[in-house]
């Protein structure tokens, strides 16, 4: 097995990295352990095989363990087989944001006075995309930690199905715990109304957001994230003019300032057309 792009690979005890291209030999299996997700990718002469297993964990492990196995794995129920056309035996893992909006609820309600503003950092769980060949054909994508579903709307007839998430609504970048399978979104909230604002939940339209990876990390950050640079989305600005019903949302361009120099690793899933944005604004707050 050999690697290109970023790190030097050894046969066992690899450190998984996003967007790193690995070359497998037929018969080899690359076993990945990403917190609760165990993913094995096997290369055969005419097919790719994927096996997944979920492991219950109380605490998220921030390291992405990889190893090469030469053993033949059993045909368990999670096995997915993909026909391999004449593509190169190369494998890349790319991060992606969720395919539906994330409804994020703070553990404790966040109160904001009139004419106040703040920036909170929200982290959302990522999907792992398996790409093969030199053309990086997408085989499949798997949520690293499947989020629960939830409903966001004024009643059970109008609204949309979203993913649910919890947040501590941290306001200091330095206090963020780093996990390589989460992307950070700075959300700038401005309350221009005369009434205090209570944020109980916020719908973050993640399918409209691209994903960036930091180019430079401090040694401490790299250690905390298992060698993976942090992943960021553009800043989202929420402005409440009078009440929650009149809140508006603006998506920033490019990576946020606090992320420093970044590279784009994945584009937005959906085009942020006017109609889409309005739809999300309608259901911004619960």
């Amino acid at each position, binding site marked *: 097995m050999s690697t290109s792009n970023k790190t030097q690979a050894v046969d066992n005890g690899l450190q998984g990295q996003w967007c790193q291209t690995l070359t497998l030999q037929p018969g080899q299996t690359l076993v990945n352990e990403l917190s609760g997700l165990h993913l094995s990718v096997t290369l055969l002469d005419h097919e790719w095989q994927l096996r997944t297993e979920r492991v219950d964990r109380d605490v998220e492990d921030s390291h992405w363990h990889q190893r090469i196995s030469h053993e033949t794995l059993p045909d368990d129920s999670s096995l997915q087989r993909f026909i391999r056309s004449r593509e190169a035996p190369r494998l890349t893992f790319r991060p992606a944001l969720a395919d539906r909006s994330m409804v994020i609820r703070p553990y404790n309600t966040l109160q904001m006075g009139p004419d106040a503003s703040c920036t909170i950092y929200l982290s959302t769980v990522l999907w792992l995309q398996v790409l093969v060949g030199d053309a990086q054909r997408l085989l499949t994508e798997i949520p690293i930690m499947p*989020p*629960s*579903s*939830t*409903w966001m709307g004024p009643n*059970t*007839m109008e*609204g*949309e*199905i979203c993913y649910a998430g919890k947040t501590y609504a941290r306001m200091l970048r330095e206090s963020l715990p780093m996990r390589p399978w989460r992307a950070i979104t700075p959300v700038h909230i401005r309350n221009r109304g005369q009434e205090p604002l209570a944020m109980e939940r916020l719908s973050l339209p993640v399918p409209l957001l691209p994903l960036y990876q930091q180019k430079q990390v401090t040694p401490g950050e790299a250690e905390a994230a298992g060698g993976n640079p942090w992943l960021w989305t553009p800043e989202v600005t929420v402005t409440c003019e009078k009440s929650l019903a009149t809140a508006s949302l603006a998506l920033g361009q490019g990576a946020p300032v606090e992320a420093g120099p970044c590279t784009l690793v994945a584009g937005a899933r959906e085009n942020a057309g006017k109609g889409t944005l309005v739809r999300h604004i309608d259901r911004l707050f619960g």
Partner: protein
Amino acid sequence: METLLLWLRPLMLVAAGLALALLSTRLLRRYTAEHFSQHQRVLLQRLVFYAIMTIFLLMALRQSGFQIGVLLGAAGILTVAIGFASQTSASNVISGLFLLAEKPFELGQLIEVDGNRGVVVSIDLLSVKLRTLENLYVRIPNETLIKTRVINLSRFPIRRIDLPVGVAYGEDLDRVRAILIDLVNNDSRCMEEPVPFVFMQQFGASSVDLMLHFWVRQEDFRQLRSDMLFAIKAAFDREGVEIPFPHTSLYAGKHSTPIRIALETGNGLKDSASGESSL
């Protein structure tokens, strides 16, 4: 020869109209797939088909020497005659038009009519066709759909599952409630909001009757209902929560007097004792 030519031209017009109508519907099917629902596509295709065919038929009749005005007058008289003769069909056609305007369901949606539950596979002039979950083909006249109660099970994206759960009277109900809510919260297919809850229904004959309510995506409804029942049974077995079933007690006359029990062997009566009267 002249007679042949007289009929050949209208026939060619009808054939050309048919070809054009079929081609138009095929093109519509191909190019409207992205922008319209299945229901809208079928309606549009039929509208275009019948419009083109009507125009070409009228042109063909005109070519044959028919006076359209006379024809329409005759059609009026004919309509009255046919109307009396085919009241049911006419009623179905009119009901079909009301259904199209009201649009209580669309193609591909799951509905329940008169105890028939199935996916709508066709909405026609006289009837609606369903494919039931057992893969049966059911034809329901449009008139029936207007008169009877129709339940559209696919209208909204989410549905609530109500699961009746009975537990023994000796169980700690707060603990039972926590187990049930945990099961829902641990399944990522269940909605976090609207919030799941456990409702106490009644003190039943042999159990405390609870009802677990939680919300799921409409397409997950059947599978998740079954999966949750399996999960509840497994969780109750694991946690030692008793799921009671009806018990019957027999009394031999007096409430306090136990029934005598005798054990028999091949040699006759071997032993006898008084025991608990419950069986």
